[in-house]
């Protein structure tokens, strides 16, 4: 969703940024002249609900760290049903591939089109040198595509396929970041929002978790890797929220456990968890792991911020680098002549992408078709409801 950012004027009304539905300001200022633009957030909200929301999440890390299980747990889906995990001999010659899976999730009237980008094969081979390059290339490709779309003539239906967030899984069995982790993070930290996560955290005792987290934080600082920074709390948030926010920030990297199985132990209510001979790990228990924190942070509070940071910071950074690189002898004339005016796209030698113009048109048409189909279904549902109600009233 690309929203033209109009400057929002803050009104002295306690608006909690957590709730989705923003209340209209109370009629306090009836004596003053009431202009009414404080209702702007509501309008934006309604527009975005209509338009739907799309989000691209990348999951990266060695195989066997519980990535797929976690995604299934986070979004309560079964995205990886048909997955075949190749055995070691097959993986000897495997190169890293990038896989995309899409799913539409609807909750409370809000539709999210979630795209998951997977990186099977990462960190598997005996020689993993440069195995992160395909990932970097992929992320940059999405930026390229967006840059071209943005500079194009028809900007009505720009598909935002940029990666908004990368969940990077760190092994709980190591002693912190491994050389491969550092290399990958260094290669992508200026291109995507990174959220480091410790997978299979039920391997660790509480003290071990604390020590590992601290070690990772120290290493990230030492290696100057920029992970996604949570925005500071607004000063008008209540104390509870601030405390929660601080706790959440301190628990990075999140130590998570995933499970799509429901465990029904005797005497307790059914929970999602993992059942061992010595006890059951509850996925949604904050004393057991940080799953709730991750879910809250990723889905409930910072989804929009991740997109904004991707657009305002990372994409702009890419764009600036890209255009700066055009300022070389030979291209200097062209670049100095135009400040990337809309009409001069064809003259700018953007890095070549194999996507043809026709493919883009097809994609846009597909989107329109999809939207029309949805509207149709909605109307049909309404008609059916109307019919059912009519029958009921007849019966009475």
């Amino acid at each position: 969703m690309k929203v033209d950012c109009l400057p929002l004027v803050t009104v002295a009304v306690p608006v909690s940024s957590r709730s989705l539905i923003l209340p209209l300001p109370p009629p306090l200022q009836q004596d003053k002249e009431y202009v009414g633009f404080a209702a702007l957030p509501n309008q934006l909200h309604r527009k975005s609900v209509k338009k739907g929301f799309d989000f691209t999440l990348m999951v990266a890390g060695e195989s066997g760290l519980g990535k797929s299980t976690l995604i299934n747990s986070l979004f309560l889906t079964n995205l990886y049903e048909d997955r075949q995990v190749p055995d070691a001999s097959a993986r000897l010659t495997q190169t890293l591939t990038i896989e995309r899976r899409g799913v539409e999730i609807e909750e409370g009237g809000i539709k999210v089109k979630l795209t998951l980008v997977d990186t099977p094969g990462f960190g598997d081979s005996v020689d993993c040198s440069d195995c992160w390059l395909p990932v970097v290339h992929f992320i940059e490709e999405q930026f390229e595509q967006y840059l071209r779309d943005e500079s194009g003539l028809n900007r009505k239906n720009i598909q935002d396929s940029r990666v908004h967030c990368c969940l990077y899984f760190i092994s709980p069995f190591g002693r912190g970041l491994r050389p491969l982790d550092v290399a990958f993070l260094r290669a992508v930290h200026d291109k995507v929002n990174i959220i480091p996560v410790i997978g299979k955290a039920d391997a660790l005792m509480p003290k071990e978790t604390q020590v590992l987290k601290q070690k990772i934080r120290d290493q990230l600082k030492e290696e100057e890797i920029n992970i996604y920074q949570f925005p500071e709390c607004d000063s008008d948030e209540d104390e509870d929220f601030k405390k929660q926010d601080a706790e959440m920030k301190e628990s990075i990297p999140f130590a998570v456990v995933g499970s799509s199985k429901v465990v029904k132990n005797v005497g307790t209510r059914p929970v999602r968890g993992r059942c061992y001979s010595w006890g059951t790990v509850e996925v949604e228990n904050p004393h057991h792991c940080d799953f709730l924190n991750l879910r809250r942070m990723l889905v409930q509070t910072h989804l929009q911020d991740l997109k904004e940071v991707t657009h305002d910071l990372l994409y702009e950074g890419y764009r600036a680098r890209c255009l700066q690189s055009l300022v070389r002898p030979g291209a200097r004339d062209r670049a100095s002549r135009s400040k990337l005016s809309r009409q001069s796209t064809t003259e700018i030698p953007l890095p070549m992408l194999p996507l043809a113009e026709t493919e883009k048109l097809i994609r846009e048409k597909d989107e329109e078709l999809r939207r029309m189909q949805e509207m149709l279904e909605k109307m049909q549902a309404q008609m059916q409801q109307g019919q059912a109600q009519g029958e009921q009233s007849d019966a009475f």
Partner: protein
Amino acid sequence: LRLPETRTDAAMSELVPEPRPKPAVPMKPVSINSSLLGYIGIDTIIEQMRRKTMKTGFDFNIMVVGQSGLGKSTLVNTLFKSQVSRKSSSWNREEKIPKTVEIKAIGHVIEEGGVKMKLTVIDTPGFGDQINNENCWEPIEKYVNEQYEKFLKEEVNISRKKRIPDTRVHCCLYFVSPTGHSLRPLDLEFMKHLSKVVNIIPVIAKADTMTLEEKSEFKQRVRKELEVNGIEFYPQKEFDEDLEDKTENDKIRQESMPFAVVGSDKEYQVNGKRVLGRKTPWGIIEVENLNHCEFALLRDFVIRTHLQDLKEVTHNIHYETYRAKRLNDSGGLPPGEGLLGTALPPVPATPCPTAE
């Protein structure tokens, strides 16, 4: 006449495996060629051997291989109930991953029930930790062959020591990461290269992250992968001596191995007993509880039943293979140092190709 049972027998049987059950009363000697009258006492040879072993003690060299952080040192300490392996991650120490695989051998003498064991733990920090792990098994292969070479040199000497110091690796515990999927390519490569020169016992490390079903599925897949790739881990099928061995080892090979273990050096109170374990918010994992993990099986296997066999296979098979290759390469039995001024031919730069 009743065989005297010495005090140490009970404890000894922990470490020195009994080849046959001891007769409670002396059996009537069965002669092969002539008829014997009366009891001779040759079955006391077992007793004499025991006494000797107790006096001299014995060597055992165990190597641990695996990525850092898989709990190798903790497991070895738990196995031998002493701090024989320095944990390279004391939480307050800075530890840099070595750029190449290092081989660190540390010896300890531990004693139990009057029996002394000179235990050497050979650690391999740096294995599998780099971005590029090509050929990271080579230093390990080289080390193993170097120990065979040392032994060979000593054996071939004219005046040899009464007891040749045995630094050969008797057992290599290979730690597999509990991914839950399958072996990693590096695991396959290592075991392919090393299973022909040393006894490898694959072990699933930090197995407390797998539920019972996941454990059994993973083990099955690992066994299948090893079989498909022609990797024979200890106990190797071809070295089973008799039917008894075979049935016992078959059961271990096809059901128990690789052992899914958990190690710990901390004790907790469970049901009034102090047990080694790991305490989590959802329960205490007891290391020696067979319902929790297979540590006890591994310990019994390596120490209580197959310790001597590990040494014998190393000596009779792996070492002999190495020796045969070396002597073949040098074109016949070398006279040894000192005689005619000829020394053994130098160790080849690349590890000795092992016999199929």
